């Protein structure tokens, strides 16, 4: 019994310790891990230099592809253009590399290669592909996002992982969570366009691009799209294209596909159709709207094929093929949608539709009946990541992706035969 008061002493001691506020208060240390966007600038004095021609080098980060006669051009993202002698698709021969800082897109007309050099448009004479010659430069041809006297042109934002110690429930980014509610800071939204995102146009002395192109040649003019606009360049002076007009299109513009005297523009919110019969004054005919997505376009006859895909830059979760009747260019009508895996570039030759399905390679569909295309897969090309594809008369398919360049004989679309590949490092 004489020990019993000790019990009360213990309770008192415990109560005292509990009475300290910090003893009964939760503590929380929070770390936020997010993708930050770091501005990247380019100083004019660092890129407005004569374009240099170098010996061939390995593919490292291949982007878009372009075919001009027997020459195959492969963009090395942000670095330049590989020149490949493709006279024998079974054995393509790299012959050189044109170093063009900031380059993601290209087009060729009359032996003149037009390529973006950050905000400039450069012309390179390919008359002798083994010895290209820098021909000219049009400054400030490509829209940019800003200019800083000290830093130069703001050309893009790079994603970087950021880890920050923050107070719990007080994340200061574009969104934060407090008490189970998600808040989004609408004032913090920002736009960044990247010409590297997404390239087919054809004529006599012009080459052929992929469906992911932002550059194309039509009606003796060079057309370039940025995030919002369509820019028209006159080629009267081939070495120094002159910007003639800019047409506001909308938002989320990604790809440009010429067909006859029409331009088909793929955008996040749909496919724009422009009449281009007056090359310097394209006129919008219609907009075929679809779910927000990234959407390269390919057109053949009265049918347009639009692939919609998800992804970080595409702001959606949609992956499908839309087949659109464009008999009436002012009133395009959806024929049918087909579910896809993650479709990127596409092309069509004869009755076969070729769709790049990212890491699943290329899927080949019988396009005879637009109503049943998606359920009529007849062949495939697998074993590599596929980003864009060009099909050419002569039954040749050229596919580019992260893993490199692949060429196939598609005389039998159901059983494509690989001719060659140039692998990335």
């Amino acid at each position, binding site marked *: 019994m004489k020990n019993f008061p000790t019990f009360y002493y213990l309770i008192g001691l415990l*109560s005292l310790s509990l009475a300290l506020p910090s*003893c009964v208060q939760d503590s929380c240390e*929070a770390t936020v891990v997010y993708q930050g966007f770091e501005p990247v600038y380019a100083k004019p004095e660092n890129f407005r230099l004569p374009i240099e021609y170098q010996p061939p080098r390995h593919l490292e980060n291949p982007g878009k592809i372009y075919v001009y006669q027997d020459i195959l051009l492969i963009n090395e993202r942000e670095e330049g253009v590989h020149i490949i002698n493709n006279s024998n698709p079974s054995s393509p021969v790299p012959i050189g590399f044109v170093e063009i800082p900031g380059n993601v897109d290209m087009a060729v007309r009359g032996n003149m290669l037009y390529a973006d050099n950050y905000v400039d448009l450069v012309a390179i004479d390919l008359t002798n592909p083994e010895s290209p010659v820098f021909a000219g430069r049009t400054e400030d041809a490509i829209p940019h996002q800003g200019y800083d006297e000290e830093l130069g042109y703001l050309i893009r934002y790079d994603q970087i992982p950021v880890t920050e110690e923050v107070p719990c429930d007080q994340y200061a980014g574009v*969104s934060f969570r407090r008490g189970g509610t998600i808040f989004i800071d609408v004032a913090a939204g920002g736009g960044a366009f990247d010409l590297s995102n997404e390239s087919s146009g054809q004529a006599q002395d012009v080459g052929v691009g992929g469906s992911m192109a932002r550059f194309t040649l039509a009606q003796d003019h060079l057309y370039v799209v940025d995030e919002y606009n369509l820019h028209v360049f006159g080629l009267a002076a081939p070495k120094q294209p002159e910007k003639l007009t800019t047409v506001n299109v909308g938002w989320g513009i990604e790809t440009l596909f010429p067909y006859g005297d029409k331009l088909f523009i793929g955008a996040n919110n749909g496919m724009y159709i422009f009449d281009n019969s007056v090359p310097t004054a394209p006129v919008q005919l219609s907009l075929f709207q679809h779910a927000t997505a990234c959407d390269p376009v390919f057109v053949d006859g009265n049918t347009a094929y639009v692939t919609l895909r998800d992804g970080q830059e595409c702001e959606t979760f949609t992956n499908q093929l839309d087949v659109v009747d464009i008999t009436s260019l002012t009133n395009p009508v959806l024929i049918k949608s087909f579910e896809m895996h993650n479709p990127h570039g596409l092309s069509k030759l004869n009755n076969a539709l070729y769709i790049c399905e990212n890491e699943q390679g290329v899927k080949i569909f019988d396009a005879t009946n637009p109503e049943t295309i998606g359920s009529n897969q007849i062949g495939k090309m697998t074993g590599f990541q596929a980003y864009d594809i060009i099909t050419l008369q002569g039954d040749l398919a050229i596919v580019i992706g992260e893993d490199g360049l692949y060429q196939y004989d598609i005389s039998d679309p159901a059983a494509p035969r690989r001719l060659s590949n140039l692998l990335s490092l």
Partner: protein
Amino acid sequence: MKPWKAALLLMFLSLTPLLVKAQATAGVGEQEVFRPHLQHEVQYGNLFGNDGQEVQNGVSLQYIGTYRINPYLAIGAGLGAQTYRFNSGYSYFPFWAVFKGYIPAAGRVRPFGQIALGYGLALNRKEEDLLLVDARGGFNANSAVGIEIPVHEELGLLISLGYQYQAAESTYDIANWWLTDSKEIQQLRFRRIHLQLGVKF
């Protein structure tokens, strides 16, 4: 030293000499009637504290099974369920090693002290509404003093007041304009006053 560590140490140091003293001074007759045995406890409790912004009251339910070695000491193990905030994502399944010390008393009421050390598993690993994508538990400990009121033979009522600690980690997705992969990882330390009622059998 962290407050919870100080509280635990304080409790432990306070109990140890008491038990030694109790052993040394306990009546001979009490030792003679004692038989080592298993005992079971089921307790319901309230967890009082705050998260720095508002008061948080949670609840607990636990079972403890101990082996009474001698009149003064029992050792065993326990498990339970505890929620520290009434939002999903803050509930845990603790399991412990338990040490109980009994203080001799002349009356029917038997004071005791208890320390439990273990690990609390997170109950909710994912909760879409809260964007909770992962939850992990952590170190769980409690100390308490209380009384046991015998009712009938081995049956007794338990009342205790204690201190409860739980470490945990919760990971939340953060929505943003670009649908980029953003996460907030919270290292949490819950500290609560633990008032429990229960039965012993």
